[in-house]
Every structure is written in structure tokens, then in C-alpha cells.
């Protein structure tokens, strides 16, 4: 049965999560780390069956990482951005591999580029970067210019 956006927002509000109506067909939900699995299981049970992807954003000034779980429903035609904030100092979050198998590779990628640890994910080996030694490169405090000067001894000519 197809639900419209308003009834989905109402359903989520009843569950006690904060919902933001962003655009037509797109809503954003802020969830707590402990509630993540329950929330995604609930979304899946009401027909949100497609995990588009997972990505992370480094909010360095606030000392937090934001993980965004993109979930789309083929029945309701609604895209939900599920946002979880975790501390930058202790970036640990439960894995969702048991819910969606392809999350394995998104989690591996995020672990590689942000250093976030997915609790319960058995394989967080590097997927893209070989012999990486520095801090994870998509973090905001990773300076590409300084890195290449240091690693390759490049001098900057003006």
C-alpha cells in the first residue's frame, strides 16, 4: 500500500524521531546512534527496501562525523536521509551489513576514507588505497598539498 509523505512523517514522529521535510520526495531524519538499527529495521519493515548508499560528512568544527544512510522506497517513492552524528574522537557505529549486504563495501570505503569503525563488520580491509600511512584522506584536517610536498618532496613554485 502506498503511503504519502505526510503519513510517513507522522509514522516516524510517533516513533519519536525528528523529521525534516526537505524537498518533494525527500525527507531527512535525525537519529541517535543507539537507535540506528531499530530505526532502519522499522523503515525496512514499512517498505523502504532500497539502500542507495551510505556516506559520511566530516563536521570538524563541531567535532562530529555525520553518517547519512540513503534509503529509498519503491512503494512509497520517498527518499529518506537518515543522519547519525557520532563523535570525532571515538568514531564507532554499529554495522548494518546484516540488513543490506552491499553496505559491506560502503562501510569499507568509509572506514578507509574517514577512519570510522563499524562495530560487527568483520572485514574493514582497505579497498582502494594501497599502503596508506597518513590520516584517512577525506577528513577535513587532511591537507592534500602538505601531504604531497612531504611524501614526494615536491616544491611549490610560484
Amino acid at each position, binding site marked *: 500500500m502506498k503511503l504519502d509523505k505526510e503519513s510517513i512523517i507522522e509514522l516516524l514522529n510517533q516513533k519519536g524521531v525528528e523529521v525534516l521535510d526537505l524537498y518533494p520526495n525527500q525527507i531527512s531524519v535525525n537519529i541517535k546512534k543507539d537507535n540506528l538499527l531499530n530505526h532502519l529495521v522499522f523503515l525496512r519493515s514499512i517498505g523502504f527496501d532500497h539502500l542507495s548508499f551510505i556516506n559520511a560528512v566530516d563536521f570538524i568544527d563541531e567535532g562530529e562525523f555525520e553518517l547519512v544512510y540513503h534509503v529509498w522506497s519503491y512503494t512509497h517513492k520517498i527518499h529518506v*536521509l537518515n543522519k547519525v552524528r557520532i563523535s570525532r574522537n571515538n568514531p564507532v557505529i554499529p554495522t548494518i551489513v546484516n540488513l543490506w549486504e*552491499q553496505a559491506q563495501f560502503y562501510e569499507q570505503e568509509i572506514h578507509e576514507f574517514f577512519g570510522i569503525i563499524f562495530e560487527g563488520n568483520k572485514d574493514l580491509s582497505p579497498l582502494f588505497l594501497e599502503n596508506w600511512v597518513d590520516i584517512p584522506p577525506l577528513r577535513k584536517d587532511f591537507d592534500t598539498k602538505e601531504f604531497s610536498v612531504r611524501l614526494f618532496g615536491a616544491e611549490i613554485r610560484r
Partner: protein
Amino acid sequence: MMDSPSYMLSKIAEKDNLTVYELFFGPNHPGMHGNFGYVLEMIGTEIVKVRPNAGHLHRGFEKLMEQKLWVQNIALVPRICVADPDPNEVAYCTAIEKILRVDIPDRAKFLRTITLEMSRLSSFLMGMGALAAAVGLYTAMNIMTADRDLILDLFEWLTGARVYHMFSIPGGVRNDLADGFVERLYKVLDHLEKRLIEYDKLLFENPIIHKRLKGLGYVSKEDAVKYGLTGPNLRASGNPYDVRVDDPYAAYPYLDVRVITQEGGDALTRAIQIRLEFEETINLIRRALKTMPEGEIRLNLGNLSALKVPKGEAYAKVESSKGEFGYYVVSDGGMKPYRVAVRGPSLPAGLLLAQKHLPKMKIDDVAAWMASLAICPPDIDK
């Protein structure tokens, strides 16, 4: 007896059967598209285990985009998918327009739609050609490559570039159609439609392809959704979902997009799916050209080099020839994006499905399997 050649050979075969060896399928392999590879553990010609070997093509786009102006990134985004570059531009621009909360002129929407569909045609031609080459039918590949050039010529006329068009910009498109463009596009479409008969004879009705692809890489209707497959791969498994219809963007709300679905879910069905969608795309361009309105081609957003996007975030997705291409853009209100994250359509098939399908498969089928799923490594690596 003991030293006869046949006895020696059988001994070697027995020994070989027990030996597991590692084979690098790519990045330097004729059956591999792009700089990507699988490390296959093999017994004889049969695959036992597979490990994706990505990263040869990682160019750090997501980091680079944080260091460039909003409009400078238009030159970067098409490079994420070489075969089908336009969906990247449109998704990136749509995400910016969503945060800006502006609606672009109707003619710009139609121009975007037409370039998207032309890009889809050229990508399908490349995809069908790759599939043909993977099963050894090089003639089909050669005439498809030649036909793709006709579309690239049109792109060159319209945008000045053959492969990376940089045609969409925040607020609309760069330029309008030149005089005589529509007529020539119609001519190319007619030519491609006629060519379909030849494609059918050379490729889709060829017993070789039926023999090689039937039953290969089967994905059930439920699994296709569960594994996150999108686009033609999803529809070839019997799911009638298409971003152009479900979450319309550009001019698709004004157009009658016919979603083609097939039951089957194996490589042969996916190959025929691309062929059917190719035919439908030709008709869709004709319908778009007929209904295209006159008018402005872009909004005046001031000097685009000084464009500032208000604080906010948006996810925009586009149905590319391989599936859902999505851009998640975060702005902190400055001159540059705070974060751009890209969802490429090839990751679920190229990484997850590879581990499900490739074991027990013969080495000869890997290239055909990859081509049938339209796995395009540049969007895994980014």
C-alpha cells in the same frame, strides 16, 4: 606405459586439478573494461574465490571537489563515468538547484533531457559493443562503435566536446541548439533505428550469444532489490522501477516514459533489455524534440564563478544507462562545496554480486558477465 605421453598428461591434469592458483583478471586484461581487476583463485578454468582489486583508477574526486568552486566542479564530474558522462552533470546541478530552491526554465529541462538520452544511446552502443566483444562477435562491436561516433559528432556540435560535455551548469544549460541540429539529430535517430535490424542479426539473434549468456549470472526479482541493483539490471529481473518515472527530474514529468520490464534475470535477458531500452530511447528523444518549448535556456544566477550556495544539503539522482547515479551535496554557505558524495550504479554489481556469482563460473564467462551487468569501474573508484 608409465612414460607414455597420455599418461604424463593425465598426471599433470590431476595435479592441476588439485592446484589452486591466483589469476589477476585485470587491470591489464582484454576482457576488462577500465582500470579495475578481480583477483581470482582458480582450479583449472573454474573460479573458486574472488577478491575485487579496486583503486587503480581512484582519482580522489570527492576530496578535489571540496577544493574547487561550485562551477569548476562541472569540469570534474563527467569524468566519474566515462561512457555515460551527462547524468553526473545533471545530478550535480540538480542537487545545487535543490539547495538554491530554484526552478530552471522548461527549455533548459528539455535540453538536459535530450542530452541525457543521447548520452544513454551512446552508452548503450558502447555497452552492447562490449558485450559483443566479450563473446567474440567483433563485427557487431565495430559497427556499434562507428554508430556511436555519429552521436559524439552531434555532441561536439552542441557542446564543443565529444566525451566530457560540461553542458549543464547550475541554473540551466550552456547553449541552445544550433540551426539544423534537430534535423541532423532526427537523421541520426532514423539511421540508428534502421541499424537495429543489423544489430539483431549480428548480435541479439546470434546463436552464439544465446548459448553463451543463457542462464549466466541469474538474479531473482527479490535479490535484485535486496542487493541494491538499479537500472536495466533491476528491470531485467522483473521490477518495473525507473528513476525517470518514480522520482522525475529534468523534463521527464512532461514526457511519457515507457518502462520496459522483462522476467528472466539472466545475462541474456539483460542484454535484450539494453536492446529494447535502446529502441525506446530513440522514440523518447523524438517525443522530447516534438514537445520541446521555446524560451530561456538558463536562469540568471549572477556570476557563476562567484556563486554562493546557501547552507543545506540535497540528494539528487538520475537514471543513467547503468542505473541510479546520485549526488549528495552539502553546502556550508560558501564558495565551494563542503562535501560531495557520489553514488555510482556499478558498486553493488561490481563488488557484491561478483562475490556471489563468480565462484563456480568458468574464466571465459567473466568478461561477458561483467558486460551484461554494465559494470563501469570508474564509478566504483571515483
